[in-house]
């Protein structure tokens, strides 16, 4: 079996899973209006990390590791995230039985701009180099496996980690990921007209696009169970392609439907066992409509569904990880979070979007993810 051992989220809402989760329980939203020419000529809403706190927390860890090297903002976020998740376990980071998988879409892409205060070697922009930096910092003997598959990267990385443990290649796999809000990404999504002028409103009638966010997240999967808390296991997962369009989802949710079908098959569960769904829920008109069709096609229309993007925006390569971390915490606490930003259902296939945070015993959950390139992923996780 593959156990979820430990996790972390570094975001605008906090530096740790619980800090993030309880901010969300109290209804706090991390998406704020950003006015900074560094990112975009006009104001835009996004969820940004407190850089002062990041630098402080990072310095404490760097001192522990007696490390005086320079690190980029993203590297610091990932290192702080991995360090926190690790510190909650007795997992041996120096063991060859421990692997690291890194999920990111754009890595240190902010380094392409000529406006950075600090300069790094040109190689630093390459994603495998980011993997090397993380490996070197923690002194792990294995090359970091770097996955970059648009917005399903995080869910895919968790899926790959589980396969490594199931096939006994590793005992513990640290899945970490992160992405930044940069001019590169803000300008790109702006040109797509897919950024909402306000904090995003997943599944809402008036939803008008996504909000971006920066975050790092970590989940540690292991063949060893937790001794001191509720055990949650990875049951199964899959990815699938729409084979339809590179920048828009399939109108019938084909890839998403296939991914969920295969994940359910892999998990050896019945669809009716699913008692909660964490959607991708970007709040673009097409994505949310597509997901509702996919959920409906699986006859899961009455299952409570939420999207975390109303709190932290779309965090790209971190999204699948941090949303899985929130889902794990929902399962441990038996609290279902409302979909921040959602008021009135605005999709053609009615599904059960959570509009207020409430307590409910949940045991088996589905995590969905979709992204550019027609990519889709689904994970099933369950209490034992």
């Amino acid at each position, binding site marked *: 079996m593959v156990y979820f051992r430990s996790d972390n989220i570094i975001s605008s809402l906090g530096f740790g899973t619980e800090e993030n989760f309880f901010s969300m329980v109290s209804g706090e939203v991390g998406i704020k209006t950003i006015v900074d*020419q560094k990112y975009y*000529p006009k104001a835009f809403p996004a969820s940004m990390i407190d850089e002062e706190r990041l630098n402080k927390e990072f310095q404490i860890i760097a001192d522990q590791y007696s490390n005086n090297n320079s690190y980029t903002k993203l590297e610091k976020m990932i290192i702080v995230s991995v360090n926190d998740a690790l510190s909650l376990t007795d997992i041996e980071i120096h063991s060859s039985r421990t692997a690291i998988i890194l999920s990111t*879409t*754009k*890595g240190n*892409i902010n380094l*392409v*701009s*000529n406006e950075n205060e600090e300069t790094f070697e040109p190689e630093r*922009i*390459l*994603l*495998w*180099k980011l*993997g*090397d930096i993380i490996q070197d910092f923690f002194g792990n003997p294995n*090359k970091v*496996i*770097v*996955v*970059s*598959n*648009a917005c*399903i990267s995080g869910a*895919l990385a968790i899926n*790959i980690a589980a*396969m*490594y443990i*199931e*096939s006994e*290649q590793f005992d513990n796999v640290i899945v970490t990921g992160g992405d930044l809000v940069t*001019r*590169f990404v803000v*300008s*790109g*999504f*702006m*040109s*797509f*007209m897919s950024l909402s002028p306000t904090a995003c409103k997943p599944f809402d009638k008036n939803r008008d696009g996504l909000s971006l966010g920066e975050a790092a997240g970590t989940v540690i999967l292991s063949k060893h169970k937790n001794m001191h808390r509720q055990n949650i296991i990875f049951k199964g997962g*899959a*990815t*699938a*392609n*729409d*084979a*339809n*369009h*590179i*920048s828009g989802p399939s109108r019938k949710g*084909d*890839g998403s439907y*296939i991914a969920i079908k*295969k994940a359910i098959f*892999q998990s050896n569960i019945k669809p009716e066992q699913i008692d909660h769904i964490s959607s991708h829920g970007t709040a673009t008109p097409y994505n949310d409509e597509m997901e509702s069709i996919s959920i409906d096609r699986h006859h899961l229309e009455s299952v409570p569904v939420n999207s975390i993007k109303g709190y932290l925006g779309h965090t790209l390569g971190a999204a699948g990880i941090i949303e899985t971390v929130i889902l794990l915490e929902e399962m441990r606490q038996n609290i279902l979070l409302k979909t921040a930003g959602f008021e009135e259902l605005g999709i053609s296939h009615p599904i059960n979007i959570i509009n207020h945070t409430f307590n409910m015993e949940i045991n088996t959950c589905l995590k969905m993810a979709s*992204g*550019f*390139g*027609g*990519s889709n992923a689904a994970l099933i996780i369950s209490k034992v």
Partner: protein
Amino acid sequence: MKELFINSYCHIKNNRIFVDGKLLYSDKVADSLSLFAKSGYRYIKPSYNKFFKMDEISKLGFLAAEVLLSGVNLTVYNEEDIAVILSNSHSTLVTDLNHQLTIDDYNNFFPSPSLFVYTLPNIMIGEISIRHKLRGENAFFIVENFKADIITNHINSLYLAHKANAFVGGWVNQSENDYEAFLYWVSNEGNILHNAFEINKLYNLIY
């Protein structure tokens, strides 16, 4: 379970296209990937207008897949069971730099969605999937240099878990001054065993 084999592979390198190690096409004039992709397209004649909208690295991956899959009867497989698992070292660096040029200066600011969408390496997987109706598993790995083991491992794991039974695997890379594609088809048929040793050997066949 039956073993996995490689029965076809394709290299595109230094303005030449090879199938199963044999030279199929060579262009002695083209001095860029952009020009070579155009001439390769004219030679292969896929009649696929979407090709001209793609960025250079997607064109490279598309052409390699076109050549590789022309000899494969895809209809014997379920489209949901065909996986595309690719890798490279530079992600979409050249396209990223092109996008960056459009946003560096607010007095000359013209980001374009049709360019930005290509700043993700798996868009190439999407293009190949659309063209050949492949709806199975996807993954894109970033490694410093070509290494068969990560992809081979992933393909074997998917196969053993019954998540896929046929695969396009390989490497499609574009750096600021070079490019290279190496794709191979993995299924129950063929005579080259599917393992990292054989794949590294095939990769090194053309230099």
